[in-house]
């Protein structure tokens, strides 16, 4: 159908690569990611360990594959919560308007004025740390942004004559919202899913880096970076693999959906 631009092609290639490696990581990693080996501590990248080993002699490639899996699962779950709840709220408030819409949007403005990571930290400090808690924490803070995107699309679409036409036919409000308007918001919603996923990856990495996200023994890219920082003098390569995995993932998705 549509022709991809050069940047979109690069994005697609990156996404396919990252998704591919992660999928492989579900079933196979070169080494056991958690197996320590006293003989191979802090090894520089070499043939056996393409990204080197860490201070416990664990293979960094295997750990990155495992950590990426955790990060991506958390990010996907987060986006799912945010997108489903946010889209429904945004669709309904955007379509009907009125006082409820006004209040929710005000509330949304307030939430938007708090930096997202601060909000996530607030939720975490209440719920406590852990894999599932961070999904809930990030999921909650992603709801407003999806609600806002969907709402503004619905407000714009609501004015169009085809919606009036549907009302004149006698279509019910739910039918209009989901069958008539929703398909037209997809071109906006799909890219915002990818952007949301990116933000979730970055947020999860930041929180785990701060020690407030995924807890040991679950591996995570953010926590690996925090560990790597302590060995910056002795094993500077340690930080490269997890860091660039994050960068390439986010870069890939955002190039792919760039219009």
């Amino acid at each position: 159908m549509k022709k991809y631009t050069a940047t979109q092609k690069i994005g697609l290639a990156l996404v396919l690569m990252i998704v591919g490696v992660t999928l492989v990581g579900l079933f196979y990693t070169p080494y056991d990611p958690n197996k320590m080996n006293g003989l191979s501590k802090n090894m520089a990248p070499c043939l056996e360990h393409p990204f080197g080993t860490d201070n416990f002699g664990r293979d960094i490639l295997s750990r990155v594959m495992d950590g990426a899996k955790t990060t991506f699962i958390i990010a996907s779950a987060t986006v799912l919560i945010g997108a489903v709840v946010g889209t429904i709220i945004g669709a309904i408030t955007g379509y009907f308007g009125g006082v409820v819409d006004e209040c929710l949007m005000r509330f949304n403005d307030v939430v938007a004025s708090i930096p997202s990571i601060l909000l996530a930290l607030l939720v975490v400090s209440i719920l406590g740390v852990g894999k599932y808690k961070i999904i809930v924490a990030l999921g909650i803070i992603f709801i407003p942004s999806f609600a806002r995107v969907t709402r503004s699309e619905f407000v714009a679409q609501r004015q169009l004559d085809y919606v009036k036409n549907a009302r004149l036919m006698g279509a019910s409000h739910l039918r209009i919202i989901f069958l008539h308007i929703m398909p037209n918001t997809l071109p906006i919603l799909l890219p915002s899913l990818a952007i949301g996923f990116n933000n979730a990856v970055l947020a999860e990495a930041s929180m785990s880096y701060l020690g407030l996200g995924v807890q040991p023994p679950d591996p995570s890219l953010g926590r690996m970076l925090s560990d790597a920082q302590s060995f910056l003098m002795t094993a500077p390569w340690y930080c490269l693999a997890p860091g660039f995995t994050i960068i390439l993932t986010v870069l890939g998705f955002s190039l792919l959906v760039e219009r």
Partner: protein
Amino acid sequence: MGNTILEVNDLHVGFVENKQYAPIVSGITFSISKGEILGIVGESGSGKSITSLTIMDLLKHNGKVKQGQLLFEGSDLLTMTKEEKRRKKANEIAMIFQEPMTSLNPVIKVGPQVEEVLALHKEPNPGEYKKRVISMFEDVGLKDPEAIYGKYPHQLSGGMRQRVMIAMAMILRPKLLIADEPTTALDVTVQKQILELLLQMNKKYGTSIIFISHDLGVVRKLCDRVIVMYDGAIVEQGTINEIFECPKEEYTKKLLAAVPSMRKHEEQEEAATVEQEEETPAILTVKDVTVGYTVKGRGIFGKKTTKTIVKGVSFDIKEGEIFGIVGESGSGKSTLSKAIVGLTPHASGEITMQEAHPQMVFQDPYSSLNPAKTIGSILSEPLIIEGKLKKEERRRKVEQMLEEVGLKGDYYGRNIAKLSGGQRQRVAIALALMTNKKFIVLDEPVSALDVTIQDQILKLLKRLQQQHRLSYLFISHDLNVVYELCDRIAVMKDGVIVEQGTRDEIYYHPKEAYTRQLIEAIV
């Protein structure tokens, strides 16, 4: 012709997309002499606007002049350097555009916007600039020019903005003015004033004008000579009399025949009286209806103010009748139509009709049909909601209806996005008739269409009306279209019906001053 100002020789212009050259203008040749007003008419896609943008060197980056000459006073604009061309602009060739709303910079006051023309061309005496702008404003008929100088565009009306644009174009007394549909976005009465102003500029300063328009009536009134363009080429050119009285080419004849015009019918029809059957029952009765919007200020504590758009309007429509409402923008005609079909609640008064769910055909067929769907699924939708027919029966009915509105063939599965404006409007009409409706509201259904397409749609509407004995409420700003179609007419202004009566009463014996003013502005 020794006094030729611009000579266009074998001009080819097109767009380059994906390294492919798509021609828009293919080999046109014409010239314009000093003091002449030359009209260029054509439908959308005929290349008339691209021609003018090429002369002004305003093509978008993917526009490309393939070959040709643009001789302005003997020297070719196309071979000049960028700087030479820049100096010619506004100084010798100026241009005004269709949308006075958006053609001025919204965040700069209009006075300085005109003044910068002087600075850009390094006119002497910068101290005098402001005075020159103000006297130019006076020249184009802006009242209180000093106050206007300090106003932002959004504080002016459409007509005033177009006057500012003309002042901007004329301040350096250019030899040639290109006017690209300068009155299309304006109300008829304002349109008349702007046309008079252009004529006045032409007389006073001897400026040649290239007047581009889709509206043949306007061209006929203003221009000395006219060029008819179709599909990037010149079909025919000649004096106004030659083209309008004895057109040679088939396309010109078709175009002229398609123009709805009360003048055309004047001789044969004035005598004929429309028969009025008093007994026919009314399909719609509107009694003393008032419609208002509640405008809410921003924020939770925004103050609510009620704005009344329609004030106590009464009329009725009989079975099988086409009732027209004409009015300029802001007259409340569209709001009234929305209240009648129930899209907007009315504050007071009574609307009674036989039809439980009246349908409406909207102005813009690009927004009134869901772009995400196929024609089949759009037309099936009312039948699905009604829930009477099975799937195959629905499909049969949809196909039958498509045929009736002139869309024979495999349209059922086609995507809306691939249809032209005229085809879309046919689908919209089919949609309105889908569940055997008797009464339809048509809100400016042909305003967005080219004149030949417009003619086809009007004919279709008339045929369907006669076949099914339908009743229409036809809303339009175009008095010529209303004349062609309607039996009875109401004239609206500022939310009230100024006058209503049969078509001939309104057009030939208007009682009110406003109606007379409208009729006189018809071109």
